[in-house]
Structure formats: structure tokens, C-alpha cells
């Protein structure tokens, strides 16, 4: 990125000098940031020890001594969860009177632009709610605190499969926050019309049923959406080898999978507008043009907003399992900027946001699942098995699968580009009739070139 800006700077005639100066500063900032990042854990320990010495306190080092101002950035959580967030902040400020936390909520779609711009000027918020792809990108700038060190004391509280979500370049740069696994919301009317009384439980079943549903009702069953790059790990085909930084998805199984999907597409079983992101799944589902929708149960209620009648009759089921037999869980994350002026307070706040108590409460508010085991054991998540409401029931199934859930995002900083290469190559197979083997060969070469 830095190099890119520099060449771009050169292209501007009059202001080239100014730009170069700006970029130069920037590079230094980042170097500093990555330097301090490596030491973040140590610095933290030192600070803790100091406060220990000063107060002669026994164990709780980080209590009264914390001070500073923290900016906490969340993604599209206001105004819906304003009360929850403000109460949480107030609790924290009460525990640590010297700390002042300000909340800033940003729209999800624009967050990437904002955070990358801020990262380039060393101006990141102290504590950030980031999605997994952002964490990996920004961690690569050296702008985030290494949580394996800074939060070593709470590491074991989290589900093992989720802790590694923020893992990139040999360390974890985020605490997992709220998460979701998939559930299935389905339309029993469409299934009944096609002669089924239960939704599918595996991908294999799903495609077989799709054919019958499509032929009898004209509706779709299983649909390939924009997140199709996740189909590879769900079918037990890992995308990237983190150690050797090479693509691992060019296998006979992948060729078979794509050939199979191409056949389904040619038979008209799934539409290309959903795959290309031109039509959103909730809309299609609310229009009763698709029999089921596999997604996080917290999103089920979007159907209620679009068409209450369709939601009313919908039922929930456990999510489809691929040959891998494991669910993909994609948590939201809490990261701390390594250039924060109040690093200790920021790390403490990050731990506070993700602790069992606060996660449980947020889970209840937002119908999402916690990433800490203690909160997930709460009876709240065991309710809903017999609920009439699709979302509550979906949450029950999703919570059941939490233990076995794992984050399947490739652990490389270029995760977004890797996923895009896979998607592009899949699109070529589907839309341009490219041979699956040729497409995978190309994608493999592209990913390898990207990662080297």
C-alpha cells in the first residue's frame, strides 16, 4: 500500500513533493507503530508491574491506576443498541474513574475506507469493533495490539475455534466478540408443495431436494450466494496454507465440487443474481421464491420486516453441514490500536467488552451468540427449542453448534483478495463455461503470486 501511494503521489504534478512528504511521515508512523506493536505485550507487563510496585497491591494490577481517554468505534450498532453500549461504558467508567470512553458508531459499508485511512495516518480509534477481514488487513500494517500477549489471561475463556479468528502472521490481533453460526429458516409451504415435510440437513440432500422443488414449484432451494468462497472450507477443502503461504484449494475435490455446482446452475437450480450480489437473499426469501435461507438466526427477522406473513409461517432448522462436518462461525472482533495513548486502559476495556457478563447481555439484546464459553452456557441459549418464533428457534440450533464451530477464514492478511480470486474464478466456471480444472489452476497461480 505504501508503495502504491508513493507512485500515485508521483503522478500528481504540482503537489508531488507535498504528497511524498506526507507519505514519508506516514511510513515512519507505521514503522513506529509496528515497532511498538511487537513490544506491546512487554510494555503492558512493565506498566502492570509498575503499578503493582507503586500501590503494593496484591494481584489486581490494572484497577484504579488506569486513566486516559478511549475512543471506542462500533460498526452499525447505533441507534439500536445505544442503551446497551452506553450502560456498558458507564459501568466501565465507574470501575475505572480515570478513564473516559467515547463511543463512535460508523456504518459498516464505509468502515473499511475510514479505518484504512486512519491506519495510514496513525490515527486509529483506541478500541475498534472490526470484522475478520479488516482485522487481518490492519494487523498487517502493524497497527493492532497482539492479543496472545496482551490478553493472555483471558484467552482460555474463549472458544478455541473462535480465538484464532484474528490470527495472522503468527499471532492473534483481536478478541472475538459476538458471533453467529448458521441456522436455516425455511418456508414449509414450498416444501409441502414439493412433497417434503422436513428441510435438508446436508448439502447433498439440499441439492437433490432443490431439483424437485424447482420442477414442481418453480422456486429455488439451495442457493449459491456472494459468500461462495466459504463453500470450499465447508466442503473440507482448505483455502490457504498459512505456513508456506500457498494455495491449497486446487484439489480433485474442488474440481468435483465446482463441476457439480455448474451442473446445478445449468439445470436452473440457482440464480446468478444472488451469486453476484445483485439480489439480496432476504428479499428473495420474503418473495417466496426460495424455499430456505441459511444464515445467522439474528438475520431471520429481516424477513419479518420485509413480509410479516412469510415470516409468520417460517420455521427454523439446524444449518446444513458439509463433508467437513463443522460449522463456520464468523465473529465480530474487538481490536486495540497499538498507537493508542492509553494502551492499558484500551486493552482493559477490550477485555471488559468481551467478558462473559457483557457478552451474555448483548446476546440477549441482539440475538447473537457469545464467543466466551461461560456466557454460552447460560440457560438463555438453551431456550427456544420449542419456540414458535423462527429466530428464537434458530438461535437455539446455532448455540448448539457453537462448540464445534470454527472460523474458516484464511489466516493471511490478503484474505479479501484471496476470496475475490476464488469468487472470480468460480464466476468464470458458472457464467463463462470455463473448465473447472483450468479455472482452479488459474486461481491457484493468482493466489500464489499474491501471497509470495
Amino acid at each position: 500500500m505504501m508503495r502504491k501511494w508513493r507512485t500515485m503521489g508521483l503522478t500528481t504534478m504540482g503537489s508531488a513533493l507535498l504528497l511524498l512528504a506526507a507519505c514519508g511521515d506516514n511510513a515512519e508512523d507505521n514503522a513506529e507503530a509496528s515497532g511498538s506493536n511487537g513490544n506491546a505485550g512487554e510494555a503492558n507487563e512493565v506498566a502492570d508491574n509498575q503499578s503493582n510496585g507503586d500501590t503494593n497491591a496484591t494481584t489486581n494490577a490494572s484497577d484504579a491506576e488506569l486513566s486516559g481517554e478511549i475512543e471506542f468505534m462500533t460498526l452499525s450498532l447505533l441507534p439500536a443498541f445505544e442503551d446497551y453500549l452506553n450502560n456498558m461504558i458507564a459501568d466501565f467508567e465507574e470501575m475505572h474513574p480515570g478513564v473516559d470512553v467515547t463511543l463512535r458508531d460508523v456504518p459498516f459499508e464505509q468502515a473499511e475506507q475510514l479505518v484504512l485511512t486512519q491506519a495510514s495516518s496513525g490515527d486509529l480509534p483506541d478500541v475498534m469493533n472490526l470484522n475478520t477481514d479488516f482485522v487481518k488487513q490492519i494487523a498487517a500494517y502493524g497497527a493492532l495490539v497482539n492479543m496472545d500477549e496482551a490478553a493472555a489471561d483471558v484467552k482460555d475463556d474463549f472458544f478455541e475455534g473462535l480465538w484464532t479468528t484474528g490470527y495472522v502472521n503468527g499471532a492473534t490481533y483481536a478478541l472475538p466478540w459476538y458471533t453467529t453460526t448458521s441456522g436455516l429458516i425455511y418456508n414449509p409451504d414450498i416444501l409441502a408443495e414439493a412433497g417434503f415435510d422436513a428441510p435438508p440437513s446436508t448439502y447433498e440432500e439440499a441439492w437433490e431436494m432443490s431439483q424437485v422443488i424447482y420442477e414442481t414449484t418453480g422456486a429455488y432451494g439451495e442457493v449459491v450466494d456472494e459468500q461462495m468462497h466459504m463453500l470450499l472450507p465447508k466442503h473440507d477443502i482448505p483455502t490457504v496454507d498459512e505456513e508456506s503461504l500457498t494455495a491449497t484449494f486446487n484439489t480433485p475435490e474442488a474440481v468435483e465440487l465446482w463441476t457439480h455446482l455448474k451442473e446445478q446452475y445449468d439445470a436452473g437450480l440457482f440464480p446468478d443474481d444472488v451469486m453476484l450480489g445483485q439480489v439480496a437473499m432476504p428479499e428473495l426469501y420474503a418473495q417466496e421464491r426460495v424455499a430456505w435461507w441459511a444464515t445467522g438466526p439474528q438475520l431471520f427477522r429481516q424477513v419479518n420486516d420485509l413480509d410479516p406473513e412469510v415470516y409468520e409461517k417460517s420455521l427454523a432448522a439446524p444449518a446444513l453441514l458439509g463433508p467437513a462436518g463443522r460449522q463456520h462461525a464468523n465473529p465480530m472482533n474487538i481490536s486495540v490500536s497499538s498507537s493508542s495513548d492509553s494502551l492499558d486502559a484500551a486493552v482493559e476495556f477490550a477485555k471488559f467488552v468481551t467478558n462473559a457478563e457483557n457478552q451474555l447481555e448483548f446476546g440477549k439484546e441482539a440475538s447473537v451468540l457469545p464467543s466466551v464459553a461461560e456466557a454460552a452456557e447460560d440457560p438463555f441459549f438453551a431456550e427456544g427449542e420449542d419456540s414458535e418464533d423462527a429466530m428464537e428457534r434458530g438461535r437455539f440450533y446455532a448455540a448448539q453448534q457453537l462448540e464445534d464451530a470454527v472460523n474458516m477464514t484464511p489466516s493471511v492478511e490478503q484474505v479479501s483478495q484471496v476470496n475475490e480470486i476464488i469468487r472470480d474464478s468460480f464466476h468464470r466456471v458458472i457464467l463463462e463455461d470455463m473448465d473447472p480444472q483450468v479455472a482452479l489452476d488459474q486461481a491457484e497461480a493468482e493466489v500464489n503470486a499474491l501471497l509470495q
Partner: protein
Amino acid sequence: MAQSAPKETQTPTGAVVKHFPSPEPKRQGSYRSRKLSQKLISYFFLLVIASITVIPFLWTISTSLKSQNDAVFSIPPSFIPSQVTFENYITVWNTLPIPLYLWNSVILTFFGVLLPLILCAFAAFPLARMQFKGRNLVFLSIVATMMIPNEVTMIPVYLIINQLGLMGSFTGVILPGAVTALGIFLMRQAFMGIPKEVEESAVIDGANIWQLFWKIMFPMVKPMLGTLAILSFIASWNNFLWPFLILNDPTMYPITLGLYQLEGTFVTNTRLIAAGAMIALIPILLVFIALQRYFIEAAYSSSVKG
């Protein structure tokens, strides 16, 4: 006359066709019907285009008036809500400080229009009317910056604003748009269109350069100022990304940013967003209705000069 003469000789039957008044009405008739069918075709296409542009707008209005029990994306789309409700408008008004957002938008847009008008004219006047060394080079390098997309300069400009300590201020939002290369280009064209004699007679009458600019030249480029004002107005009012990067206090958000808060991570209420969009549209419609004449004038003048 010259046309009618050969025609008479060419007709074999001769006597019947005397002179051109008789073929003329016939030709006119066919011309008329041709004109009518042309009109019908063009009206047909205009209607098609108009409905294509208007339908999304109507859909937004109807969605904003739908109650929670009406489906949003039904097939075929339903335009008449089963029960008209203003609930969505009330909810939006109560959830977000809409008047504050509108006021912020007004401030940002006011300066976002005023500053380019004055500063671009200041920059363009010498480039158009004064002789100095390197004038063309200066002009060319200004125009050359139009080739660089905004996205490229965004991060450097962000860094500069940050270094100036203008983060989180309206000044930081307004400053980068205060002078635009396009504005300088347009104003220079306008100044170049004024006859040299006007300037010379003003100088003979004893006007100094300052009076020449404010009293003579500036009023004469009003049509182009109108064009620039409208372009700046639209750009400022709709500006989203830049205020988003610079402002971090929600109480300073303009309406475009403020409304974005209606989009939630989990559930997005489509009806509320439609209502919010309508609320944001009302001020623009008022401005357009008030300044309609100038909009069209601006379009004319820019087409002639450009």
C-alpha cells in the same frame, strides 16, 4: 418561382398542375402527419423514460407510508399501502435529530457554495485577463489535476487536514472543496468571453483593478456563477464520504451521514429508510422549485459557453 417552373414542364398531363400553391398544402399535410407520428414516437419514449425515473421514487414514497404489516418486496410490487401511516416518519423524527442534521447540512452547503464562487473567480480572473509569464503553465497544471480521481488524493488530503489539526471540524470538511479545478476552468472560460473593450472602457473611466473585478467583471459572469453554484450545491449537499472521514461527533453529521444510522447490522427497517430518504429530499426539492429558472438558465449558459 424557379422551382415551380421546371415542375410544370415535367408534368406530362400539363394543364392540371398550375403552380406551387396546390402541391404545397399536400406536402405540408404529409409533413404534418410525419411530424405528428414523430411526436408520438418521441412522446412515447419520453413517457417510458419518465416512468422509469419516477417509479423508484413512487415506490419509495409508498414504502415510507406502509405499515409494518405490508410486505415491502411483494411480487408484483404494490404501490398502494393497505393502510397509509405516517408512523415511519414519526419514528425517524424521534430516533434521529433530523433538524440538527439539516442545519449542519445547510452550514456545510452554504460555505461549500460560497467559497468556490469567490475563490474560483479570484483564481480564474488573472488566468483569463492578465498577461504574465507562465500563465498557461499554471492553468494547465490546474486543469491537469482534474485527471486525478478523488480517491487518489483522499489519503494525502486527510493527512494534511490531520496535521493542520482540523479533524472533527466543519473547516476540515469545507476546506478541500473550497477551490476546485473545474470551477477555475469554468470561470476562466466565462471571463474570456467578456469583450476586451468592456475592460478597456472601465479602465479609461478610472476603475482600479479591484473595482474592475467586483463592479464590472464579476457581475458579467453571473450565468456561469449560477452554474458553478448549482454544481457546488449538489456536490456539498450529497457529500458523504469526506464528512464521514473528517467528522467523528454524530452531532456534527450532515443529513446524508445522519440517515445512514438507520441501517442496522442485523435488521434494517426498509420503511424507515424510505421515510428518511423522503425527509432528506424535501429541502432539495424546495431549493429546486425556488431556483428552477436558474437551473435551466445555468444549463443554457453552460452549454453555450462550454
